[in-house]
């Protein structure tokens, strides 16, 4: 099963909220291995999580 970028981006997000079923996890990994756009997207989502955790702690 080949994922589109639209599906892959949704799974990247959902993967931050729950453990994806095995089939989805494998399909996403295959997609990320060949897709730079979605790989950048995933890195940005991980960054967004780190940033929002710190929200407020650096405000003046």
């Amino acid at each position: 099963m080949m994922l589109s970028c639209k599906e892959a981006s949704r799974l990247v997000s959902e993967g931050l909220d729950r453990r994806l079923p095995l089939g989805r996890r494998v399909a996403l990994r295959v997609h990320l291995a060949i897709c730079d756009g979605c790989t950048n997207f995933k890195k940005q989502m991980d960054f967004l999580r780190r940033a929002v955790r710190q929200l407020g702690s650096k405000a003046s």
Partner: protein
Amino acid sequence: MDDFRSRIQRERSYLLRYASLQLRDAHAAEDAVQETLVAALAGEASFQGRANLRTWLTAILKHKIIDSIRRQSRDALPAGADADELDALFAADGHWVDPPGAWSDPDASLEQKRFFAALEACLERLPQKTAQAFLMREHLGLETGEICKELAVTPTHCWVLLYRARMALRECLEKEWFGKR
């Protein structure tokens, strides 16, 4: 005692801004901060010896915010369908119209106050329920199950809200921050 009271009062405007960002309702934010200050005064003894007053107050405020969202969502309307916005990001075949490029050294941004101001401005642009779901998940650290329950939505709707929030924030940060550096 008076000294503790005035130290707490000095944090009031910070707390109000923090609560407003998450509650989107001036009255609810004011109430949550007021409840926090009252609880803090009553709990002065449990503060003794802790290093940071603001951190301690913020921890109390987080609980008050969750209580407030609980009350709000009892009578809140379901989130509107803003799926069109998402569709515009992808072509008919599901490919990115404009594939995300790498952000240069994003972690350096975490050292900058201006970055957090941009992030807050982006959060303020999200629809209320989307923003609340996102902040409950990523800032307050609740599990999706709890968020669905508090916002009275199905798990699937909850994942969609979180996905929309992340997509919109990515777009916004790209435009307002990473694209400008």
